[in-house]
Structures are given as C-alpha cells and as structure tokens.
C-alpha cells in the first residue's frame, strides 16, 4: 500500500514584519492554497494547524483558530506543537487521517507573528531551568551556531568567506522570490563588513525572525485522480524522529550534552538521523534528490545540513558550495527559495514553507529561481526539545 498523499495546493502569506495577528497570515495562506488546489473549503474535512508556544501567545489552538477564521464547516481539527517541526508534524497528522481513510482532503496551515522585544527567560533564581542557566552564564542563541561553525573551520578548513558565500548564494535566490522578506543581493564584502556577533558568525550569517504563514491542501491519491490532478507532487516521506541517546552535539538551551559513557551507547548526531527515516520511507537515497530546502539558522549550518542529508561526504559541503553545485543551476541546489536567510524564521509556518517551495519547484512554477527538471526534493529542520523533521516530496 502506498504511503503517499497528493499535494493539491500550496499557499503562503509573504514573510515580513507586518505587525498583524498570526491568524490573518494563516487565512491568507490557506485561501491561496485552496485556490491553487481548486478545492472548495467545504470539501476540506480535516484542518491541521502548526502551533508555537510562547507566553500569552494563542497559537496553541492553531487548528481550531484557522478553521473558525475560514468559517466553521464541521471539519475535524488538530493542533501540533513540535517547535520548528510543527508544520511537519501537522502534515503527518493530515497524512495519517487521509491514509486511514477518515478523510480525503485536509488543510495543513501554520502562521506566526514575531514577538515584541527580546526573548529572554523569566527572572529570579531558577537553576532548574536550562534556559535560565545558560543566559545567566552568558550563553545566548548565536553561541550554539557559532560553536558548530567554528568546529567546521578547525576540522574541515571551512572559512568565513565560505559562510559568507552561503549568504551571497541564498540572497541571490531570494531576490527572485516574491514571498521572501529580504530581497536584496549581497556580496562577500557586505557580509564581512557586518558586525561580529559570535566569532566566526557575523550579523549577516544569522537569520532573523519574521511574520509569515504557509499552507498546503493535501489529499488521497484517489481524490487527486478524480479531480484531474493525478500528476500532482506527492509527499513521499515524513520523518519526525526524536534524537537517539546519547546526543553528542550540545543543543540549545542545554549547558552540556548527554554522556555516552555507558556500555553500548555511542554519541550521535540528531540532525544526521532525521533524513535517514525519510529516505527509508520514500525508498530513495540522497543520490535521487534534485533540490533541498534546509534550515539555515546560520550560513554555516546550511553546510552541516548538506552533509547531514548525505548530499556530500562529511566535511565536503564547502567544496560543493565553492563549485557552485548548491546554487540554482548547480548539481544539487540548496535553498532555492532563499532559505531562512531571506525569509527569517516564522516557526510554525517554516517547515510548511519548505514544502510549499518544493511543490512549486516540482511543478516547474518557480520562475527565475526554478531548479530545472526537479523531480525529488527534501526538507530538513531542527528545533528545540528534540523536535526536527525531514520531508520528501516527489513527482
């Protein structure tokens, strides 16, 4: 039995800093996806929302909030929270519903509004909270990305110019994407002139946070056939596995990794484990992939992801970049959307935005940023609390 579902429609509210309520972005994305699919709203029998969790933020009822905004019509709802992977988990819930035969068409939607001010932990003396501990000791978010970046430099010979070239590449791609927030092209010199935040990463190596919304209309293959969309791109795999003990890479907000001292236990990389299940489920390998959308929270992290997805041997992603292989027109374009560098992170929408981009790429609708002949695409992202995902879309 096929595990596949069809992607009938994709929609996004442009990323930016618009200052509206998140519901507005989600509704705009959902309406675009419905129109793109040619599916009437009342045919959607399952609404799966990606949520985010913040103090006083109502995103935790995402499924119901979007269903109500689009007009209650008696569909069933679901809300998924999985940090950066919320969208993928919401998509997985829709897939389960469809594959079990409980519904034929589902809407998957996520949207976010950037919080006002700096995200910092509550005060007091709270050593039981790892987030409080690391801020108290002077360890902020960029610290973690800088540690990964510096390790690449010392182990593999990557340079700050390589990292800057990732920004240059993604900015060029994003400049051709009307849904991207930042559409300006940059040079290596521009990146080098931006302020150092956490050595070796500069301001322009690190992604911002944004408002945005993304949505997909997904269905059974049978329904897709009946409405004349048998050749629609398909979700071939969704991996939302947890890390495996012992996690050998220090992750935000922790102050230490797991210990791998026990017999039979080895240090493992969570990022590298995410695509393994996806490849297995889709029955394909990294050599079959034509395009990838990865979570470039920093420029250097894009290079880590390329190796985690096995698109290059460990330590060789920078060489791929230098060859131009990961640019549009190259052998394996990475982040043709412009990536987080051009979007800024909108947590519950981002994993869906990655799938939207692959959908348009596989349909050949990406205009100036089209990856010619793309048939198989993969996404990857990782967030807090052991959440992460990798989705394979094929046509």
């Amino acid at each position: 039995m096929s595990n596949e579902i069809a992607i009938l429609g994709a929609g996004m509210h442009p990323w930016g800093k618009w200052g509206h309520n998140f519901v507005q972005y989600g509704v705009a994305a959902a309406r675009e996806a419905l129109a793109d699919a040619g599916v009437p709203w009342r045919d959607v029998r399952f609404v799966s929302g990606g949520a985010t969790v913040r103090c006083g933020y109502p995103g935790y009822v995402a499924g119901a909030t979007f269903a109500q905004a689009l007009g209650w019509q008696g569909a069933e709802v679901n809300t998924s929270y999985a940090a950066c992977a919320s969208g993928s988990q919401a998509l997985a819930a829709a897939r389960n519903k469809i594959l079990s035969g409980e519904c034929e068409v589902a809407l998957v939607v996520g949207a976010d509004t950037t919080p006002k001010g700096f995200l910092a932990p509550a005060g007091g003396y709270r050593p039981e909270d790892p987030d409080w501990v690391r801020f108290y000791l002077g360890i902020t978010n960029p610290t973690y990305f800088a540690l990964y970046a510096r390790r690449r430099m010392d182990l593999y010979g990557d340079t700050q110019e390589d990292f800057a070239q990732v920004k240059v590449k993604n900015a060029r791609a994003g400049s051709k994407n009307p849904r991207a927030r930042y559409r300006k092209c940059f040079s290596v010199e521009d990146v080098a002139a931006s302020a150092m935040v956490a050595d070796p990463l500069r301001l322009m190596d690190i992604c911002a946070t944004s408002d945005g919304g993304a949505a997909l209309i997904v269905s059974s293959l049978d329904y897709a056939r009946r409405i004349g969309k048998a050749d629609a791109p398909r979700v071939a795999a969704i991996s939302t596995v947890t890390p495996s003990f012992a996690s050998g890479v220090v992750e935000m907000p922790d102050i230490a990794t797991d210990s791998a001292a026990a017999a039979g236990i080895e240090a493992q990389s969570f990022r590298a484990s995410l695509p393994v299940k996806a490849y297995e489920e889709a029955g394909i390998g990294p050599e079959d992939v034509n395009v990838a959308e990865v979570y470039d929270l920093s420029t250097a992290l894009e290079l880590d992801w390329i190796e985690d997805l096995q698109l290059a041997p460990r330590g060789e992603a920078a060489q791929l970049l230098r060859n131009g292989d990961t640019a549009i027109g190259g052998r394996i374009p990475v982040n043709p959307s412009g990536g987080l560098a051009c979007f800024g992170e909108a947590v519950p929408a981002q994993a869906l935005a990655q799938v939207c981009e692959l959908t348009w790429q596989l349909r050949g609708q990406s205009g100036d940023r089209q990856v010619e002949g793309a048939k198989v695409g993969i996404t990857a992202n990782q967030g807090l609390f052991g959440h992460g995902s990798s989705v394979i879309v094929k046509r």
Partner: protein
Amino acid sequence: MSDKPLAPAIEGWHTMGDQPHLIGTRCTACGTYFFPKQSHYCKNPDCDSTDFEEVELSRTGTVWSYTNACYEPPAPFVAPQPFEPYAIAAVQLEAEQMVVLGQVVTGVDTEQLSVGMPVELVLETLHETDDDIKVTWKWKPVAA
C-alpha cells in the same frame, strides 16, 4: 577588588577551592554521567535505574569548539559596565564522554583557542552582589 566572600553563582554545581570540579551524578547501574545532576531517572534508553551517586567530573578536557560573545546578553546575565566580550568553549570530557559549555577565563580570546586544545576548569567571578562575589566555572587553556 572587594573583600566580600566568594559564593558559587549556582549552588551545588561545582566544588570551591584551587582545584574545582563540576558536580554531577552517575547512574550506579549503567555508568551514565549527568550534568546538571540527575537523580530520579536514567536517560539511557536501556536503563531504568533510579539509583544515582554524586560525583566530581573530570576537571580537564579538550576543546570541542569555541566562540565568543560580542554583545551583552540579556538578564539574568549581569554584565560588567562597560561590557567586555568574552570567549566561550564547549569542552569534551574523556571519562564522562560528554561536552560541557562554559565561559573561557578572562584575557583569553578566540585567537588563542583551537579544537582539541587541552583545558582545565577554574573558578572566576561571574558578577558581584551586595553581599558576595558570585563565582562560576570557566575553562582555561592548560599551560604547555
């Protein structure tokens, strides 16, 4: 410098004195170490022990990676004024098979660090209060 007494910034996370150690726990059944201390359940998926002993972790290790903080972090960090950037290291402890983060001692910047470099644990001021000087663990390159 003031004559206030020294006190650990986070109570019970390290010993005091010239040769300080981080204080963790160790599962008596499988040998997994925990820092911060874990004493109720073992996170090894093959172990369901609830028995832990408090242990001092190795006070030397090798640099897994390093960076610095060029901008003043938000509270609860207490920044000296004017703010001075400081280096940060992630350090691999051999026996414990784990990596622990911490600031690097004052006066050592990223140019003096490299992956694989041996370092040791020392105590240094994190900030002062009205009553005492809060100290915390920091990593210091071992003199060659």
